[in-house]
């Protein structure tokens, strides 16, 4: 018995078991990260006569601050995120509450609700495109019956809200199921006690459910914000970023604009800035969450 407890205390063996994972994540995670940080300070034009990497300090970033295309793509991404995430959180919460009711066939409905989460995002984009094509799509057809002209190929606002609708369709089930997991794990006693004390449903929701659900709510919110900011596949299939640049969110902007261009240094600077933006945002969210939890203690 002595030998095994020694084995489990041996940190070297533990790191040995972890090493394949560390190696793979180093190659595809850390290495690109360091590389993109480095390139952001360089000028590298591959089609120049002499293609070589030149250290230029912050020149790329100076250019970036005045790049209105990039900044407006970032702004559009934030606007999209605000719309989708707030709708999804509200709808998701209501649906999760519904799922807490005792009824039969819960697993069946849960399976249907997890359907959008398992299907390839690019295929979801394709299905939505097939619904919105003027001519045979069902949505333009229904709108025309009502006397509206729906055409996301040239109406910017409609295109924007179609991508919002798609995202809400795609990710509301995620919010529902995470909040449902949180709700099921809540302790029963506070609710029973509150019921005895004659609290109304609203009071229980506001003073018991929401505070207790706080960690799950913030985690869900955090993951949704991160994912909504970087959306590419579905929107690309639905609108292709158009009309014009109406639905060209920041992920699409990098993918279509920076990536194919040969100005790698500038592209790297833009990638780094988006990365930095995401890190700051997640740090901010984490701080808010932990602050709240510390105060509770």
């Amino acid at each position, binding site marked *: 018995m002595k*030998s*095994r407890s020694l084995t*489990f*205390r041996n940190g070297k*063996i*533990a790191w040995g*078991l*972890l090493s*394949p*994972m560390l190696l*793979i994540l180093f*190659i*595809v*995670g850390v*290495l*690109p*990260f360091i*590389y*993109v940080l480095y*390139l952001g300070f360089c000028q590298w034009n591959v089609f120049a006569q002499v293609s070589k990497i030149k250290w230029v300090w912050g020149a790329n970033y100076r250019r970036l601050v005045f790049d209105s295309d990039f900044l407006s793509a970032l702004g559009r991404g934030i606007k999209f995120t605000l719309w989708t995430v707030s709708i999804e959180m509200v709808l998701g919460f209501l649906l999760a509450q519904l799922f807490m009711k*005792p*009824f039969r066939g819960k697993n069946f409905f849960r*399976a*249907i609700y997890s359907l959008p989460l*398992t*299907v*390839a*995002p*690019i*295929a979801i984009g*394709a*299905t*939505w495109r*097939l619904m919105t*094509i003027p001519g*045979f799509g069902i949505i333009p057809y229904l709108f025309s019956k009502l006397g509206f002209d729906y055409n996301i190929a040239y109406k910017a606002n409609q295109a924007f809200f179609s991508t919002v609708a798609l995202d809400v369709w795609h990710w509301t089930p*995620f919010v529902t*199921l*995470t909040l449902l*997991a949180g709700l099921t794990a809540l302790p029963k006693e506070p609710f029973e006690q509150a019921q005895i004390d004659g609290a109304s449903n609203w009071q229980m929701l506001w003073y018991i459910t929401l505070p207790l659900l706080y960690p799950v709510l913030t*985690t869900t919110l955090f*993951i949704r914000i*991160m994912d909504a900011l*970087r959306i590419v*596949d579905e929107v*690309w*299939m639905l609108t*292709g970023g158009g009309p014009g640049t109406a639905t060209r969110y920041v*992920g*699409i902007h*990098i*993918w279509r604009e*920076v*990536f194919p261009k040969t100005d*790698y240094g500038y*592209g*790297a600077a833009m*990638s780094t800035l988006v*990365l930095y933006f*995401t890190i700051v945002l997640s740090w901010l969210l984490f701080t808010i969450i932990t602050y709240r939890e510390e105060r509770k203690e």
Partner: protein
Amino acid sequence: MKWFLKIGWVYLILILVSIIFLFPIYWTFAISAKTRIELFSEPRLLQTTFYKENYIRPLGNPTYRGYLWNSFLISTGNTILVIFVALLSSYALSRFEFSGKNSIFFWTITNRMAPPAAFLLPLYLLYTRIIRIDGWKLFDTRIGLILVYCVFNLPFTIWLLKGIVDSVPKEIDESAMVDGASLFRVIFSIVLPLAAPGVAVSAMLCWIFAWNEYLFASCLTSANARTITTGLAEFVTVVGTNWGEMAAVAIVAMLPSLLLLGLVQRYIITGLTFGAIKE
């Protein structure tokens, strides 16, 4: 009426929402069954005929069959690699006491949180210019994609498997060790069989996520290692899209996840929240 007020309205809402979730997929299927002439006539909800040509043409096309084959090989290869590596890591995290254990958790998660778009350029450059051995490079190879997909599949699998390995009683592998079994033997012939159901579900989730990926596949391949998701995206860029065939390919791309849905649905949230929220 009493029944409706009590629970009936819940069913009513659930069914309506279910229809909203199912409809786009049904609509795609309906379009995939339509001929060109049917497509541009008045939209109908019920599709009674089935135009197989939409499926036969892309699936008979060697290019598309290659895409499917690549997708299959890449997803399967990635799953095997991820499960193997994650099993070792999760065993280490579950059983061993060592300093730095918690930082590993945050580190793996940061790998998942990074926006893929920001990694396209450095990965592309690494794959085409930096990592090359005698002219061989990772760009446009299946191995390249198998490795990249570890970025998002490894973190969540490790945290899913850790929970599963935790539930295997420590005493079992301790007694095996006393009998002289090596560490690898303990992991693969004692812990793995006991954790098999959980491992199987994690493997399915990995497989689905790898199959579904598009962005990296579109940038890190050019011809040889293209996957079915890039094949689907190619439909829109070509002038004069054949919508029926596109719908058929979309259905084919969705098929694996639709088939595995019932099995993975219980774990999908743990997978998507990389273990932060468990069901």
